[in-house]
């Protein structure tokens, strides 16, 4: 028993935190053992971030105590937390694009010479040692950060936290914007850290990751502690039940794809993709798989008229069309739900209703003038239809959770009634409950005849929804898989380039290949 107590690195006892008008954390208790990976789950808004902010000294708890290695401590601010050995990697980037990797990692404490100038030689050397130790030797400390891929940037972020030699490392959605291969590297690093006795708090929405990496999992719901479980003793559904308080309806696969071809992409060439050819059928969900940086988003943006392509032809219902601006795409019945909800999809400081009608203000026009009552009417209908949880349609979007925000972006496009809807990472940073609701909405759309192109980095999502999957690797199409050939392993092979269905001699230019 004594031994067990010694094993506990950190203990949160009955932590309570109030914000004006709301209890963000209520009586939360958490134990963190030496060398364990402790997953923290909960829907968006459940209080995970607040808890992390309490731990890192950004917020002071209104009640309860923090016990670090058997001693009660007060985290006055971030610096104190850092000195006590708590390292944190936030979901938002804290790195500067214009500086080198080394300068980013040692942002606050670069080695200096006697004159107070930065000693770059020493800085680069110590960064190299750190990166080697973490198994990231392929990152050059002198490279400017902006030249690294998002995955590598995430690694730098983690290296930055580890440069302080923390005993406790908090990772907030570390895989949200990196590919699966990068994620694997990350897991290796985490495992080697835990061997050295570092305790890791791992926050993620991705159930598969939790089962891969975590030893124990704790769940929060509406600021309340729901319990802690050994990962070996439970299954995914148990966690989901704790998070949402109910069972999720499993999606049954049913294709709504018809034979009619609505869209055809021929010989698309651009800065980030080469020789792309494919067809899209009416009512079909076409999955676009690939690693981060494979050129999927760039391709989608080119189809939508957001970015320029070098060459290529686009056919809609057999007619060749040219699209130079999103508005033209929209007029032709194409919609695009962007990858980054907050940066590209939403008007955060505007209301729910203003967001919903953003693509199509004309629907609220009567006698050539805008009718605000009509906007509210339309918005209310979509709030109802998509189950958007908001007090009213006049609520600012910034105050809503990720899932509800994503539904609002979706509503915006539904209002347009598109023939083709491109969805880019539709469930990025969305909690499980909202995820399945979004899937249901997409399915319902195809039933009504809309065709969907779905870009996703979550393979399970692609596998369960798509009728067909295209795989891109470094801007090249490497596979087109019908549903019966779906398998995670296969897709990963094509995505990483170890396999290619279309070697150059097999590909005939201008001939879209259909495998069905």
């Amino acid at each position, binding site marked *: 028993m004594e031994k067990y107590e010694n094993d506990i690195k950190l203990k949160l006892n009955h932590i309570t935190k109030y914000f004006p008008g*709301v209890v963000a954390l209520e009586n939360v208790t958490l134990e963190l053992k030496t060398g364990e990976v402790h997953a923290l789950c909960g829907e*968006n808004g459940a209080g995970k971030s607040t808890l992390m902010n309490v731990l890192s000294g950004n917020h002071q708890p209104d009640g309860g105590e923090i016990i670090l290695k058997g001693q009660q401590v007060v985290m006055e601010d971030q610096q104190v937390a850092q000195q006590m050995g708590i390292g944190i990697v936030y979901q938002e980037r804290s790195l500067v694009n214009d500086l080198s990797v080394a300068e980013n990692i040692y942002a606050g404490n670069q080695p200096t010479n006697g004159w107070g100038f930065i000693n770059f030689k020493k800085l680069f050397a110590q960064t190299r040692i750190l990166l080697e130790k973490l198994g990231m030797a392929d990152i050059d400390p002198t490279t400017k950060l902006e030249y690294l891929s998002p995955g590598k940037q995430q690694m730098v972020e983690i290296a930055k936290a580890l440069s302080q030699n923390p005993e406790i490392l908090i990772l907030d959605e570390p895989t949200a914007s990196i590919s699966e291969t990068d994620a694997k590297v990350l897991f290796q690093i985490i495992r080697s850290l835990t061997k050295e006795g570092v305790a890791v708090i791992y926050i993620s929405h991705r159930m598969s990751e939790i089962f891969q990496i975590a030893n124990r999992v704790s769940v929060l719901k*509406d600021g309340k502690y729901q319990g802690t479980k050994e990962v070996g003793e439970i299954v995914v559904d148990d966690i989901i039940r704790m998070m949402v308080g109910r069972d999720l309806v499993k999606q049954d696969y049913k294709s709504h794809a018809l034979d009619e071809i609505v869209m055809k992409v021929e010989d698309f060439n651009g800065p980030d993709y080469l020789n792309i050819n494919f067809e899209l059928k009416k009512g079909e969900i076409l999955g676009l798989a690939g690693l981060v940086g494979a050129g999927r988003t760039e391709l989608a943006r080119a189809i939508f008229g957001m970015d320029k392509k070098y060459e290529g032809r686009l056919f809609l219902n057999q007619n060749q069309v040219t699209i130079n601006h999103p508005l033209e795409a929209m007029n032709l019945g194409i919609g695009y739900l962007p990858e980054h909800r907050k940066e590209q999809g939403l008007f955060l400081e*505007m209301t729910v209703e203003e967001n919903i009608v953003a*693509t199509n203000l004309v629907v609220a026009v009567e006698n050539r*003038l805008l009718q605000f009552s009509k906007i509210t009417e339309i918005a209310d209908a979509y709030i109802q239809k998509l189950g958007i*949880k908001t*007090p009213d349609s006049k609520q600012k979007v910034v105050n809503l*959770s990720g899932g509800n925000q994503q539904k609002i972006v979706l509503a915006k496009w539904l209002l347009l009634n598109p023939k083709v809807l491109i969805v880019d990472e539709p469930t990025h940073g969305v909690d499980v409950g909202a995820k399945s609701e979004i899937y249901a909405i997409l399915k319902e759309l195809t039933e009504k005849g809309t065709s969907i192109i779905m870009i996703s980095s979550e393979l399970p999502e692609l596998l369960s929804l798509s009728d067909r999957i295209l795989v891109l690797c470094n801007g090249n199409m490497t596979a087109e898989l019908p549903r019966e050939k779906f398998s995670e392993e296969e897709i990963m092979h094509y995505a990483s380039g170890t396999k290619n269905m279309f070697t150059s001699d097999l590909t005939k230019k201008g001939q879209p290949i259909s495998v069905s």
Partner: protein
Amino acid sequence: MKLSTKLLQDRVITLSITIAILIIISSIIWPTKFPTFDNLSLVLLNLSIETIVAVGMMILMISGSFDLSVGSVVAFAGGFTGFLMYYFGVFVPVAILAGMGGAIFIGFINGYLVARVGINPLIQTLAMMGIVRGLALMVSGAGIQNFPESFNVIGQTVILGFQTPVWFMLIIVALFSFLVSKTTFFRKYYYIGGNEKAAKLSGIRVEKMKIYSFILISALAGFAGILLSSRLGAAMSTSGQGMELRVITAVILGGASLLGGQGKIVGAMLGTIFMGLISNVMILARVSGYWQQIILGLILILAVVIDIILKKNVGVTPKKYLKKAVE
């Protein structure tokens, strides 16, 4: 959200209340000097020119941009119109059209370079401010007087007790209030200011809209400049100096944010009215000009600070909306 906090978040309402309080207090302190028709109509006359520019600035700031060259455009448009009439005897309406045309061209250059080429609006309009001020010096030099009477009547006629600039101001404010709240065209500026990328991805022609907004503010500034020349019966190369910052101050007081996406046209006028009243009160109190700037600066900071505090306290939290959604 309580009704009271909601009202306090609306700058149009808080500013109206502040103005009312200011008027009541001033009427008590100077019962014979302040609340007279003479005095108040003069206050309106003196803020009318800046209000016309502020309307354009409000639209620009709603779209998340601003224009520092407006003061120079005011001087240039008035000067160019005067230049044509005085030196070349150009027919008054033609001279006015030419002045407006010049202003619109400047606005187009600003808009094109900001929207299409991608120059930061601060840098672009700062550069334009200098260029246009130079042009204004070229056309009006040491100042031009003795305009045709048919030109002077535009800004010097008194209708129902108010001089024409006041009427022009009211018409422009009313017109743009209506347009901005009731047409899809102007509504799009809120989206552009709210999130430019999302606006483009929502099918708004952001670049074109931006060019239009710069043209609009330049046109309004040009009109204001011509009106000012007519009202004074003179064109000065120094007129409108520092106007850009006064107008931006008024527009921010009136509810705009530097980040864009916020503000109402009426707010722009309330902002200039508030500043005009402060200036009038200072004159009645015989306080020197620099105090006026100190006080306006303090009021601006105070207004923004109060705004931040109000917004912090009413943030809707997950628990709250979940409860409401369940109900």
